[in-house]
Every structure is written in structure tokens, then in C-alpha cells.
């Protein structure tokens, strides 16, 4: 009706565009709500940072933690103000059970199973029904595969050394002992009366008593890593148990030259110019044979098979673990090695190879279990109002064929039982039981004494226990770690016989 109205385009179309943009924006909000409330929800409500979890900690009794024989490891006490606090059986289990302190948070299983112990987590049905109930909390008791007796013996055996012992049942992955030293008195951290001074003292200590070395410590493995190299070599078909190398005997005196680097050995006094195969090389811990096997196998296969054993990722375990590595992956050669020198050195556990004691126990356990890796487990049962949920064995993967595992078992048995082998694994032999194992002396590049290692299992013909022992900077594997392993495996076999 007006002249100017022809210039005017209605705004309806652009307003619809604005509405569409807002629809997308609000749709995003709804999706985000769904993500946090439903997708991430179950994880968040069990986090120790959730105020519901924190509130529950003050008033709701936490579940009891027991060992495989029903021995109580952690229970509750009430202080003068009526607030609950935790009491622990012995410092020997502190690195496993951890602590739950009103001031210093949680660690160990107390942290990992916080939601279950405080009763916030249940099965989905119970969670859904809980909001209609009067008592929202159902604290769960944990049953561990750990043996208190064996754990105490392991801590005693390590004595004043810093170190770790991991023992497991290779058939089902049950962890029998997970000792780290030095340890600490978790009860004093959990008791409000002594918490402050205890925590201060622990933080100031030079030897890191709060560090669970068995799962979070990373160490140069030395010769115990040769078992991994053997697994990769046999598994990938690069070698057979009969494989020998012509240059091995001739290199024993002056060392094997790899790209200008000399791989050295110290056993030619015993073997002279004998041509060694898998058994012979393992018996005397021949660096040259294993370096050649590593080169033959190739970096890609070595890293691949190590990965099947658990290297390169956190282990599927009840407690957090540090990642074990074959190489730091900075190189361009297959597998991430820098060159053949690094690969050759890694093949007998030096170079950039770092492992956790738990990882090495899994290596021994895999060989013991005929080449099949079982998921390591600490918690075997979770008991609440609605009964007990049992956590059974699960297979992680078949790493190598049974025949290959048998060949490595034969080699590791020779390393403990044979005349020459005994020199390297003094004291590992369990009287009356065929014992398999491999010692390690991890050189630290001139920084003090080497780490002393031993991994093994027994009885060799039908293994029921596998072990990894690490003693920090204690000297040769044969002298310190091997006898500890022999004693502890013997103790376990005696107690279960």
C-alpha cells in the first residue's frame, strides 16, 4: 500500500534461519546432558571426587578387605568423635591395599575399588532401585587372591632392600603376592590422630615408601628380558629352538660387532667355542646369541610380541600400572628402534627397555601357562547384600603356541637346573621340584650397582606359581634375587601341597 513496502522483504525467512541455528544449539545441549548423565554418569558417580562418595566416606562403614584365606587386611574403627577410620592388618600389604584417609585421600585398592567399598556402586538394577530405598549404601567386602602369609614372607625376604616381588598363579592369573619395599604403615595414615606427621615423614623420605614398585616402578630388565626375545623369535617363526649362529662362538672373546658397537659376553670360560642353541644360550645367558636372535627377529616382531605380553599399554589389572616398553619408539627403524645397535641391546634387556616387576611376572606366567596370558587379578570376589560376585579367570591372549612355550620352559629349566645354569641362578632351585627361571643383572650405565632380577616358575612340568623378583641395585641376579625367588616359590608350594 505504500511505495516503500516493495523494498521491504519480509523477515520471516531469516527468522526461521535463526530458529534453526537455535534448534541445533539446544539439541547440542540435550546431547551433552545425555553424555554426562547417562554415558559418562556411571564413571563419574564412582569417582573419589564425587561429593556423594566423599560424604559416604564419613558416615558409611567401608567394606572389609580379606585375603584368600579369609584373613582380614582392612577394617573400620570409630574414633572419639564417632567418625569412622580404617585400620590395616600389616604394613606388608600397604602397597596393595593402600589407604583411605579423610585427609590424604585414597590409594591402592582403597582407591581403585572406592565405589564398591563405600557402597556406591552396585549392579545396574540395584543402582536404579537405590533411589527408592531408605539406605542408599551397600558397602561391599573384597576378597583378594593375595596370601597374607606369602606377602609377609616376600616383604621379609626383601629385607632392607628396595625392591618388589610379584607371585601369581599362571593358570588363572591370581596374584598371590605383590610386595614392594620399603613399605609404610597405612594405619597411621588413616588414623586422624597420626595422619599429619606420618604423611609428612613419608613425603620427606628419600626411598619413596609410598611408591608401589611392583606396579608403578620402571626398571631396566637386563637378562630377564631374554625370555621376551625368545618368545618373539619363536612366536614369529624367525628362529627355532635349534637355531645357532656361526659367528657366536668366534665372537665370545672379543665381542660381537654390531654396526660398530661391541656386544660382550662373560661365559666363554664355560662354553669355549661351543655352538649354542636356545637352551645352551639361555643356560649361560649368552648376550651374543640373544642379540643375534633379536636382529634375526626384527624390531617390529619384538615390539609386537612384547605388546601381546602387555608392553606398550597399562596392564589390565586392578591397580594402576606403569607402561613397560621395549624401546622409547623415537627411531625410524621397524618397531621404533633407532638402529640395530639399540635392537641388539634391547634383545638382552638393556638400551631403552624398561619394565615393571608385574609385567615380568606376566612374561614368566605366560611361558608357564603354555603360551597363554591370563589377566592378572587381585580381587576375586565382591560381596554385598545381594550376594557375592565372583571374578573368574579371563584369558588376555594366546601369545605363542604350546610347543614354543615348552621349548622356552626347557631352556629356563636348564638355566636353573643345569651345571652351568646354576652359576647364574644360585639358590633358585626348589629342593625336590623342577624349577624354571632366568636371572638378570641390569646394568645401569655406570650409575652404581646393577639391579638384581629373577623371573621363573615351578614346578616346570606343571607350573602352579610364577614369580618376578627385583632388588634395586643389589648386584648380580644370581646372588640376591634368585635365592629369594627359590625360597618364596618353595614356601608357596609347601603350603599348598
Amino acid at each position, binding site marked *: 500500500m505504500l511505495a516503500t513496502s516493495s523494498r521491504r522483504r519480509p523477515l520471516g525467512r531469516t527468522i526461521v534461519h535463526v530458529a534453526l541455528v537455535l534448534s541445533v544449539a539446544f539439541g547440542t545441549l540435550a546431547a551433552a546432558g545425555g553424555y554426562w548423565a*547417562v554415558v559418562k554418569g556411571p564413571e563419574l558417580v564412582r569417582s573419589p571426587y564425587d561429593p556423594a562418595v566423599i560424604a559416604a566416606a564419613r558416615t558409611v562403614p567401608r567394606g572389609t578387605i580379606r585375603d584368600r584365606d579369609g584373613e582380614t587386611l582392612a577394617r573400620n574403627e570409630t574414633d572419639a568423635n564417632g567418625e569412622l577410620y580404617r585400620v590395616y592388618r600389616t604394613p606388608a600389604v600397604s602397597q596393595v591395599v593402600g589407604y583411605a584417609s579423610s585427609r590424604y585421600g585414597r590409594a591402592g585398592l582403597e582407591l581403585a575399588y572406592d565405589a564398591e567399598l563405600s557402597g556406591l556402586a552396585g549392579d545396574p538394577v540395584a543402582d536404579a532401585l537405590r533411589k527408592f530405598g531408605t539406605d542408599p549404601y551397600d558397602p561391599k567386602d573384597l576378597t583378594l587372591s593375595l596370601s597374607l602369609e606369602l606377602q609377609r614372607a616376600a616383604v621379609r625376604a626383601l629385607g632392607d632392600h628396595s625392591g618388589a616381588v610379584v607371585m601369581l598363579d599362571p593358570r588363572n592369573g591370581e596374584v598371590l603376592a605383590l610386595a614392594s619395599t620399603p613399605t609404610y604403615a597405612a594405619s597411621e595414615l588413616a588414623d586422624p590422630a597420626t595422619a599429619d606427621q606420618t604423611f609428612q615423614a613419608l613425603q620427606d623420605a628419600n626411598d619413596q615408601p609410598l611408591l608401589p614398585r611392583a606396579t608403578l616402578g620402571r626398571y631396566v630388565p637386563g637378562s630377564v628380558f631374554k625370555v621376551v626375545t625368545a618368545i618373539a623369535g619363536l612366536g614369529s617363526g624367525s628362529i627355532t629352538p635349534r637355531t645357532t649362529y656361526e659367528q657366536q662362538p668366534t665372537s665370545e672373546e672379543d665381542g660381537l660387532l654390531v654396526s660398530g658397537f661391541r656386544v660382550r659376553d662373560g661365559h666363554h670360560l664355560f662354553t669355549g667355542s661351543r655352538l649354542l642353541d636356545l637352551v645352551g644360550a639361555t643356560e649361560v645367558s649368552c648376550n651374543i646369541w640373544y642379540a643375534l636372535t633379536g636382529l634375526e627377529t626384527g624390531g617390529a616382531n619384538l615390539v609386537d610380541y612384547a605388546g601381546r605380553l602387555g608392553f606398550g599399554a597399562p596392564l589390565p589389572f586392578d591397580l594402576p600400572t606403569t607402561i613397560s616398553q621395549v624401546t622409547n619408539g623415537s627411531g625410524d627403524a621397524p618397531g621404533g628402534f633407532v638402529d640395530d645397535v639399540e635392537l641388539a641391546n634391547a634383545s638382552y634387556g638393556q638400551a631403552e627397555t624398561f619394565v615393571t616387576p608385574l609385567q615380568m611376572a606376566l612374561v614368566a606366567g605366560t611361558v608357564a601357562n603354555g603360551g597363554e596370558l591370563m589377566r592378572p587379578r587381585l580381587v576375586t570376589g565382591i560381596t554385598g547384600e545381594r550376594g557375592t560376585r565372583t571374578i573368574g579367570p579371563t584369558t588376555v591372549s594366546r601369545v605363542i603356541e604350546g610347543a614354543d612355550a615348552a621349548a622356552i620352559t626347557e631352556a629356563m629349566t636348564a638355566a636353573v637346573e643345569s651345571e652351568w645354569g646354576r652359576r647364574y641362578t644360585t639358590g633358585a632351585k626348589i629342593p625336590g621340584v623342577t624349577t624354571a627361571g632366568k636371572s638378570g643383572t641390569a646394568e645401569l650405565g655406570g650409575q652404581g650397582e646393577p639391579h638384581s632380577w629373577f623371573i621363573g616358575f615351578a614346578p616346570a612340568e606343571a607350573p602352579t606359581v610364577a614369580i618376578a623378583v627385583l632388588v634395586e641395585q643389589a648386584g648380580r641376579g644370581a646372588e640376591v634375587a634368585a635365592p629369594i625367588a627359590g625360597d618364596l616359590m618353595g614356601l608357596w608350594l609347601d603350603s599348598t601341597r
Partner: protein
Amino acid sequence: MTGAAGRAPATSLPRILGPIRPRPRWVEARLLALAAVTLLVGSVSLRLGVDGQFGLFDARGLGIYLAALALAHVAQVLAGRRSDQVLLPVVGLLGGVSLLLMQRLPQGLVTLGEGESALGLGDVQLIWLVLAIVVITTLATVVRSDAWLRRYKYTWAAVGIALLLLTFVFGADVAGQRLTLRLGPISGQPSELLKVILVVFLAGYLSENRPLLIEQDTRLGPLKLPPLPYLAPMVAMWAIALGIVVIQRDLGAALLFYAVFLALTYAATGRLSLVVIGLVLFVAGSALMANLFEHVRDRIDIWIDPFADPLGAGYQIVQSLHAFARGGLLGTGLGEGLPMVGGRLPIPEVHTDFPLAALGEELGLVGVIAILGLYFVVIQRGLRIGASAADDFRAILATGLALVVGVQAFIIAAGNLKVLPLTGVTLPFVSYGGSSLLANAVVVGLLLAISDRGVEPPPAPSEATGWRRRLRRGSA
């Protein structure tokens, strides 16, 4: 009502009392009844959750609120306006949810007065809510002309800038932000009122200059732009937003103003190029701010990974996400959430910054989506009023009013849900706070007033004169 145009001489004064002819509003009545039932059920649920007894949680408070809503309805019926019938029930339901939430939170969060007669959080919020309903009703029944907004757009702009400058200079620093202006006993957050003034000004400016802004006579590379002088407001708006960030440290208000400004510019011109330029300026400004100012950078770092420091910098947002997680799909039920842990609120400032998280805990994902849906209805009604408005001014005004509510709700909800960095704007109609409630009441009141098809028709477009006509002719 076609006779109205002929009868009413062009007057700039609002007609306070027109001929009153009551007109029933059945849709509004039914929706209000539904909202009232919802709130009554909520109140019973809340009582059951808190002390396990059957009954209303705070019968007096809820009764006063529902009575105020009913009176607002009756007043509109008596005024005989043919305005929107959905907005009041929806906003009323949001306000009622707010009332239940504030009654349920620890009452000591806010107190008015001292001693025995001191009012707690729930009662104070009730007072603001009733005042907000009064504002909505007054504007919806009394305003029958928009001339007072249309004519004086530069005056409004001046008022707005004056408010902003006053806050810059005299504002009280609260928690590192300079948002609050105190005049004797009265204090308030001018940015809440400022957003309304901004929309009024933009509606006036954009509707008057729309033909020019649509023209494309300036070329900047591949972009075709309107005459450069008309881009000045865009740059000014950008500068004001940056000023708010720098001086007031109010990222939320800056984001809100800028987003509404861009959306209205697009709605008025249909020119994507302007939006693109606006977004480029936004990104550049954000990058600049993040590089220069620690508080901006901190916000962004916290947003990217609040779980990096769950007990420190990321505490609020992490607790908010935990609240949504505890709520899950269906929520814990009203009154069953976590009000306090060890004598502290799990989420600091829950009543102003995180009401959605509190509702997410107690009403669950379903409740959150319902609340978001209510905002979307407000937006939809507002945009609908805009799209069917009689002229450009009202169209842009209504669109802008709908946007300030919708975008503000989005910004804070997105902050609570870690979709955007957390900024301290309020959740309209739900957060505690008088400034926020009253400003948003003005928005709803104006929307209701201009939704009336019987409102005084817009004046005929004025002929461009002087330099403006020359410019227009020259560009044609």
C-alpha cells in the same frame, strides 16, 4: 480493530486506560492450570524427599506464587488484550521450578533482614518472582504503543552506554568481576537491563537502515558490504563487548550481547557476509583476549580439561558434571540430591550459576531436557511474534527479545554442561537474583505487549531526508 488506526491520533504517550472489554484467554488458563498442577506435584515430591511426609513443601510460598500467576492471568483477561497465551504459563512454570529449587537449597545462601524475621533464599526469591510477575502484567496490559521505544532509540543507546560506563567506573568488584552497581541501598547488575536496551536500540537502528544494509555497494575482496558508515555499529558493538570482557571481566554478557547482535543483524539483512565478518572479528577478539588476559585463558583451560585440577580451578564445573551424573536419566527426585557435603555446597554458587546442574541431579536428564524445552518454547513464541509482526521494528524487537532469553539460557546451560567455557550469566527465570528476574520480566512483558494484534499500528515509514537520501540515491 481496524478502526483503531483512524481513531487514535499519532501520540507518543502510551495510553494507560483504553476502553476495557474483557476477553477470555482459555489457552492461557488451561496451560496455567497445567503448570500449577506440575508445581503442586513437585512441591509434594519435594516434601516427601526432604522429610518423608506427604504434603506441600512450603504451602504459603507456593500459594502466593500461584495466586500471583492467577492474578496476572485475570488482569490480562480484564484488559482484553489479544496477546500471546503461551508465554506466561511457560515462564510461570520456569519461575515455579525456580521457587521450588530455592526453597529446597540451604536457606542461608541469601538472607534479607536480621534476626527472627530474616528472610531466606526461598522467600527472597519469591519476592523477586512476584515483582517479576507484576512487571510482566503491567507491561502486557498497559503498553499499547511501541512509539516510546521506536522513537528514542539513540536515547536508549545513550542510557545503555551510560549504565555501562557507570558500572565500569563505580561498579563494585565482586569475585573478580565488576558487575554490580550500588546506588545507596539499591544494587543491581546493569548488564541484565542493558541487554533489553541493546535489543531496543538494535531494533530501531536495523529496521530504519535495513534497505541500506541490504545494499551491496562496498567491495572488500570477495565480500560485498553495505556502505561503510553503516558498519560502524558492528565495530562499536565489538569494541563494547571487548570492553565488557576487559573491564567487567564478564565473558557471559559479552558473549550474549555479541551473539544477539550478530543474529539480529542477520535476521534484518539476510546477509551471511556480515555474520562471517562478525565471526572473524569474534575469533580475532577471542584470540587477542586469551593471549592478553589470564582470566580469559584460565577459563578456556578449565573448559578444555576441568578434570586436570578437579579440586582447584576445575572444581565448579567438575562438581556440576558430577551432579548431572548423579542425576542420571531420571534424577534422584526432588529433595533427594546432595545439598551439602561437610558443611559446604558441593557446587559453589549453585543458586545463581548452576541451577541447571541442581535440577539435573534431582530431575535427571529427562528434567533437563524438559527445562531446555521450556526455553525453546519461549524462543519459538518470541520468534513467531517477530515473524508475524506488522513491521520491521516489531519483528526485530520481538526476535531480539526472544534471543536474549534463549541465548542467555543456552550460554549458561552450555557452561554447566561443558559445551562452552563457563561464564557467569544467569539462567533466565530460574537463577536466584532480582536484576535477572526483573530484566527478563521486562522482556516477556514487552513480547506480550507487541504480540497483541490490536496494538497501535506502526507509523508510516518516514521518507529519507538530507544526507541519508543522497547516500541512498547515490548507491542505487
